[in-house]
């Protein structure tokens, strides 16, 4: 069968336990830059969003600097996420099993993954996060530019700017929500965070959460190594 969502660098290393490469160094750095800027944006954005959170601007050396830096971090996030997008969009294309997976979401929440179909490198939940982020970031960057007083206020009408403000605020709330899901899942599903730190997971983790993906890796490996027999 076609290795539709297997990256070239992903490999299985037999042993106890089996080790599976999941993320390259580049992917990990890229991810963490994105993560960091998203968090900084959330903090600075919230500071300007709600008075009760204005104190957060202290983290950035005051309101003036917060106002100044927020849009620039936004630009950074945009490009850095674009990197992730190029890396992962294929693996996040929708699959038949994703539907079933979603249908049995209760079992997922209840930690009964045995009842859900085997999934590839990403399950429907992860795919949701991926696409939600992609769309929201587009929305945020475009509405953000419109309300970037210092450089772009001259190019739009006050009416447009007011719309942009509202859109930007709503989208920001949404993306933080999505981030919360992403972040919680990473904690809840143990072994996930190390994956993004070390780059590899144990065979068991792959077997439990992304069995289809594991099988493909193994199949590919055997194809490469056909003929060679393990020492008896």
């Amino acid at each position: 069968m076609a290795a539709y969502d297997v990256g070239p660098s992903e490999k299985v290393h037999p042993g106890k336990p089996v080790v599976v490469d999941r993320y390259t160094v580049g992917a990990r750095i890229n991810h963490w830059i994105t993560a960091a800027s998203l968090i900084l944006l959330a903090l600075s954005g919230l500071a300007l969003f709600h008075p009760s959170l204005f104190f957060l601007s202290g983290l950035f050396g005051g309101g003036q600097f917060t106002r100044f830096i927020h849009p620039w971090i936004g630009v950074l996030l945009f490009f850095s996420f674009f990197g992730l997008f190029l890396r992962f969009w294929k693996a996040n294309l929708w699959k038949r099993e994703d539907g079933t997976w979603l249908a049995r979401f209760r079992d997922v929440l209840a930690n009964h993954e045995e009842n859900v179909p085997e999934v590839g490198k990403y399950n429907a939940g992860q795919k949701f996060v991926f696409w939600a982020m992609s769309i929201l970031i587009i929305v945020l960057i475009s509405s953000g530019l419109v309300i970037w007083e210092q450089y772009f206020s001259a190019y739009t009408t006050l009416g447009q700017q007011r719309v942009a403000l509202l859109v930007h605020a709503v989208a920001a709330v949404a993306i933080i929500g999505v981030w919360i899901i992403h972040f919680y899942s990473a904690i809840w599903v143990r072994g996930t965070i190390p994956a993004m730190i070390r780059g590899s997971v144990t065979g068991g983790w792959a077997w439990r959460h992304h069995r289809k993906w594991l099988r493909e890796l193994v199949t590919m490996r055997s194809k490469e190594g056909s003929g060679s027999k393990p020492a008896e």
Partner: protein
Amino acid sequence: MFPPIPNPSTTDVAPRFSEKDLIRRSASTVPAPEQQLTEVAKLIDVSKCIGCKACQTACIEWNDTHEEVGVFAGVFENPPDLTPDMFTLMRFSEWENPETNELEWLIRKDGCMHCADPGCLKACPAPGAIVQYSNGIVDFVHENCIGCGYCIKGCPFNIPRISRVDNTAYKCTLCSDRIAVGQGPACAKACPTQAIVFGTKDEMKQHAEGRITDLKSRGYANAGLYDPPGVGGTHVMYVLHHADQPELYSGLPREPRISPLVEAWKGITKYAGLTVLGVAAGVGVLHHLIMGPNRVTEDDEEHAEELTEGDGHGRV
């Protein structure tokens, strides 16, 4: 004539109002002031205005701003728009009255209206950057301003401007420093024809009535006072010969109000947003407490090992 504004005193007079007279403070709350100051107002009688721009030069001189010398752009507005250094601007429009076929040169002094319900203050995210005194003055506090420009979007009259020098917002202060010592605004003192007068809001309304009667006697049937309720009334009001068509006066809004978008953004979104996020976080925690973490079991590892050892042929 309307009693002129007295000459300033050069002795050090203590200001007659201060922070403890604030009724609103941007992105923060203030204790209710002990007493309500008498509301003041500036009345601009467009029908008496000769568009001489004395208000503009007096404003620049009093506030020590430094507007650049521009160019002639085919119109009388100079500078072409309000700027961080030009808090007030004469706007000129030539209108042929279809009823009389008379040319009317409608000249309006534009500037901060000091709304009772100030959109700038509502939109402002920086605590204390915009304040409102119980006498009606809405003022910007530059050391608290972060230059985000939200006030501009909040303002129904498009008044504040951000300085590219210090990145803070500027607008008419109603000469709070003069009023604080019992003076009137510099523009009102200068105005040669007393088209601008200043006093308590009640006095201004009474004075306006007299002017409106005079205008009606001169055939301006629709003469009236511009004190728009949509923003809770203003502390800068206009007497207009055509109060039924304020937009004739270089686009003075007919029914100004804080944009619903801004209201939504600063209202529902603000609260709903935080709630949603709070809930999301809460649910996560809750789920963790009930369901606990999703751990890889020994079993899973063995399966994985078998799978790899079985060169992919193994079945379980």
